[in-house]
């Protein structure tokens, strides 16, 4: 079979023809002076988030509980590592997938010697990663309004480390907690200046499904557990 012809011009032609007659806007939003609804307004309509860092953390904590994420406040990378060690021993982990980052590299020396490290930074064997017991990543941001963790390729060891192993551990600093998605997108835009990573993902709780009789089951395909280790 030959590749079908790309119908770009035909589709665009039909679109332009169709749009010759304007359509009314039935539900006009309050508009800014520029004629566009501004993202700054989103905050006035969405669920409220308190203005102080403590209020943001309180909301994030509350949502984490509802979402069945495990939030652990740690005073240092060493404490965070001790929690990983505890989880490894409780769940008899053999292999931990991880990537090199400021926080993960500070934690790694404290892990038990018999916990095998699978570093993904230079590429990895898919089967080996699939077989590992947990994945440890850093993240871009945490979002208070939704209880989400924002991961990207560069911040979190690529596309797969945060979703393939059955237990996802995230290590972050308190300063990474932003108010809402609007702030998250603004922060990403400022950081990457148009050169975005190939994936930005907001993870909100462990993998879940309610497809069978609407009964919540965690770990449908992605991680059954999501542990957030929060440093000062």
């Amino acid at each position, binding site marked *: 079979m030959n590749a079908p012809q790309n119908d770009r011009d035909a589709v665009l032609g039909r679109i332009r023809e169709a749009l010759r007659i304007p359509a009314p806007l*039935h539900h006009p939003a309050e508009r800014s002076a520029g004629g566009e609804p501004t993202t700054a*307004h989103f905050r006035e309509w*969405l669920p409220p988030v308190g203005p102080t860092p403590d209020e943001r953390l309180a909301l994030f904590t509350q949502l984490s509980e509802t979402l069945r994420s495990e939030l652990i406040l740690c005073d240092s990378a060493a404490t965070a590592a001790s929690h990983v060690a505890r989880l490894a021993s409780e769940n008899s982990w053999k292999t931990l997938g991880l990537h090199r980052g400021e926080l993960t590299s500070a934690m790694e020396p404290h892990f038990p010697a018999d916990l095998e490290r699978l570093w993904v930074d230079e590429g990895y064997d898919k089967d080996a990663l699939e077989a590992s017991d947990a994945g440890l990543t850093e993240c871009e941001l945490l979002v208070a309004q939704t209880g989400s963790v924002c991961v990207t390729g560069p911040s979190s060891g690529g596309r797969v480390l945060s979703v393939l192993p059955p237990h996802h551990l995230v290590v972050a600093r308190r300063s990474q907690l932003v108010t809402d998605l609007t702030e998250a997108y603004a922060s990403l835009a400022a950081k990457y200046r148009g050169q975005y990573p190939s994936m930005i993902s907001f993870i909100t709780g462990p993998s879940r499904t309610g497809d069978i009789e609407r009964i919540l089951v965690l770990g449908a395909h*992605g991680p059954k557990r999501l542990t957030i280790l929060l440093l000062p």
Partner: protein
Amino acid sequence: MSALSSPPKDQFLQDADRTTGDSPRRDAVRKALHNYQSARNRTGATFTDWKAARAAAATIKHEAVNHLDQYLEEFERQFTARGGKVFWASNSQQARDYILNLAKARNVRAIVKSKAMTGEEIHLNEALVAAGFGVVESDLGEFIQQLKGEAPYHFVFPCMHLRRDEISDLFNRELGTAKTDSPEELTMIARRVLRRTYVEADMGISGGNFIVAETGMISITENEGNARLTVGVPKIHVALVGIEKVVPRLADLALLLPMLATAGTGQHLTGYNSMYGGPRQPGENDGPEEFHVVLLDNHRTRLLADPEQRDALHCIRCGACLNVCPIFKNIGGHTYGTTYQGPIGSVITPHFRGLQDWKHLSGASSLCGACTETCPVGIDIHHHLLHNRRNAAAQKPAPGEGLLWKAFAVLMRRPALYKLATKFAPLGSMLHPLIQGTAVDPVIAWTATRDFPEAARKSFRTQFKAHQAAKQQGGVR
């Protein structure tokens, strides 16, 4: 669903007879939908101002849809600059051919797919299987429906009509697993089956919830993580997306993602909301080598050309209108015989697949407006059902019906005739028991299941005249 043996309307009526007679299933589906609705109301109530949010969401989609050409071109520019490939498909044939051709050219052996209603729309799986490709649906609900050989029942909750014992029997039959009544165990069976698929597949096919013009990204919303794996592990990613999915800016998602989650499932945010801008970029350690986006028209431009109903293209497929629809609750998803069920499906299907063949879906509504009320992007859904009815009648009046309404109009424009007709109503009422429930009963469709009130001995007009006369005699006012 794909090969209808009888005309869509006959099929619809037959299926409606059967499904409305199945009380246990109706009760279960209604209860489930009611729970979605309650969850949605609870989360919606946490919004500071849902109505303002809804107006803004409608405004964003209005802006995007009414400048569709510009935003799609912007998307194409941005996405291509990041190494992605864009294919524009006028129809389902072109979309299927492109994907099949790509799979052949790259020697693909196994394909894993995440939920995409566009895939259902163009019958992609059938085409892939016919060409010899194995394709596995990875969303749990879709996986179950694929095993069952059945179309999704609800475009957000594909297997919501099935009980756990039915799923257990299905897995037992198709996968040879032990029977269980635990949804947890059933989910874990699917997890085990599918895990190898992600690693072995060399092509992942997804849909897309939003096309972001500004940054050249496809945004995918899911709860299970299956889409993350589908587009993360295999070396080729193909996203099949309707052209109407575009939004102007990345930051628009800060509003649309919470609204999609709230309206659809009652969550503040769905489990995974991921934006994919191109294949693996320089310096990244993983991700697909190729990322193809197929932009699907397939008659969307027909709907676009109707300014009155253009806002139907604002739809973000949250499914909220299905969850509140009393028609959907009572006939279920399969009765529609369409890719997109429920009120929004009844609006758009006649545009996609022919007005005369699908106008019955617009007729099969009491126009209660619950859909319009719940829609997070303010689509005038139930009024569009009226518009479809009007367009269908103008195009080709139904046999007999055109004449009936002409006669009706003649009668109603002549008060004397009208009064005469209503005078005979009591007589009709006295005679009616003689023919009630028989084949000659003109109102048999009513009386088979419901009583009809007897006409009053004296009409209101007669009574009012007497009332006025008495007042004058009594000298009142």
